[in-house]
């Protein structure tokens, strides 16, 4: 239990906060796992594995609802203030983002089904190359954002926010590369649309990881930085302006 959660006179309050924080980590692990498996199913051209991933998304949805119920109960019972309130709000928002990570992973699995289920004609493997590259990058971002959440690690949270700009660059570059396949042969347009939607899903997962990084900064410092520039956030954190007290 980190310092921000523990220490209440009422131990049950500590336990409840700990419980909702653990739900976030559980949901985060599931999201990461879903992403890894979805990308693997595409690499392995394995529609059966993809179906399982789509099925498992239901478990994430159930966990999402469970977390919301726990949060509502905690607010009603404990009326959290100050850092406890920030913690509960952060958990609530993070859960929301992680549930969407699950939805995006499901979309990636959907591509496997679309290309490899039964007698379909898969595209040239080169067209999928950027998906694997981006997926690796996004997985790293998501993992880092969850570590930042778990350890209240400001530099790590900042790094995820920085990585998102890099990811955006990667995404644009991938779209440009993809368009060359259509220029070569217009019959590739159907593949291009599907791959673009998948790249978009991965880009969104990166966006959710970035959001989680922003929530961690809010949780630790009390400052909402979602709409601040990275340079400004970094300068202010280094100057100690975002630190409480």
């Amino acid at each position, binding site marked *: 239990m980190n310092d921000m959660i523990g*220490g*209440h*006179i*009422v131990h049950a*309050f500590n336990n409840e906060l700990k419980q909702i924080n653990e739900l976030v980590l559980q949901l985060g692990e599931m999201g990461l796992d879903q992403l890894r498996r979805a990308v693997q199913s595409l690499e392995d051209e394995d529609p059966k594995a993809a179906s399982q991933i789509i099925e498992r998304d239901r478990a994430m949805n159930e966990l999402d609802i469970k977390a919301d119920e726990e949060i509502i109960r905690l607010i009603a019972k404990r*009326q*959290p*203030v*100050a*850092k*406890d*309130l*920030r913690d509960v709000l952060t958990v609530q928002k993070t859960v929301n983002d992680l549930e969407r990570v699950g939805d995006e992973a499901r979309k990636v699995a959907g591509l496997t089904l679309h290309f490899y289920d039964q007698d379909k004609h898969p595209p040239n493997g080169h067209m999928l190359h950027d998906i694997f590259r981006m997926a690796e990058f996004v997985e790293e971002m998501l993992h880092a954002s969850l570590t930042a959440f778990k350890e209240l690690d400001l530099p790590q949270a900042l790094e995820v926010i920085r990585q998102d700009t890099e990811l955006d660059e990667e995404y644009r570059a991938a779209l440009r590369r993809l368009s060359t396949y259509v220029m070569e042969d217009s019959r590739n347009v159907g593949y291009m649309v599907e791959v673009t939607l998948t790249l978009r899903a991965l880009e969104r997962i990166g966006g959710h990881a970035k959001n989680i990084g922003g929530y961690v900064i809010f949780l630790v410092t*009390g400052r909402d930085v979602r709409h601040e520039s990275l340079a400004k956030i970094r300068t202010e954190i280094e100057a100690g302006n975002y630190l*409480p*007290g």
Partner: protein
Amino acid sequence: MSNSFSQGQAAVVEGVEVPVAVDKHAEIERSQTETVGEYRVADPRMTCRDVDVFYSGSQAIYNVSLDIGKNEVISMIGPSGCGKSTFLRCLNRMNDTIDGCKVAGSIQLDGRNIYDKSMDVVPLRARVGMVFQKPNPFPKTLYENVAYGPRIHGIADNKAHLDHIVETSMRKAGLWEEVKDRLDQPGTGLSGGQQQRLCIARAIAVEPEVILMDEPCSALDPIATAKIEELIDELRENYTIAIVTHSMQQAARVSQRTAYFHLGKLIEVGETDQIFTQPRHKLTEDYITGRFG
């Protein structure tokens, strides 16, 4: 620091609990020399500077400076024995009634030191009224409870004027509709919440500028509490209110500014919204989040 303070034992002097260092937070507190946050306001009704309070040699309040603004509700919170009630009682010299109590520093009402030798405490306590934890109506009729103050302070010109004062005070206190047909009945026959509103009507009747409330809802049920809180919000239009409360939620609900006291020191003061979302001092944060107290 007195012996009783440093030995960490409970001390009660003249029936008044004095601060005692018993927890790990005392160490943080000892290094605290200045109040965190802005203790001044642009338009103060009362101005307190460097206030120290001693009970028979034991110091209960250390160097507190705080402004109380016009038409604001300021709440004072803190653990038991932190000095918040002691400080509140300084504001209309209620501490004068305690033997061995000495107040140093300056407390001004509208620019005039209330501890000045020429200050008459009777009109002072009309200008700075007080509502206590336990409703304490006089053992008289409802009418007399409210009429008593204006009569002894010579505020009412005649019976009709007195009737008018009683009615408007009771209306402002949100009590009139409930009691207008039984003004000749004893005040002690009302419910707890009604009695407390009667005490507020009694305080209002003498046209105060400031109303001090010392845990005004702690003896009331939630509905009566809600009525008093609604009343406090309405009274703010015409009065300045300083309220001591053990309920942090109540402080968050009713006040615009919050002052956090700990072991006789004013640790932090600021906008209530800020104190309850982003307190700047660790002691404030730990207290309002229920980590000690």
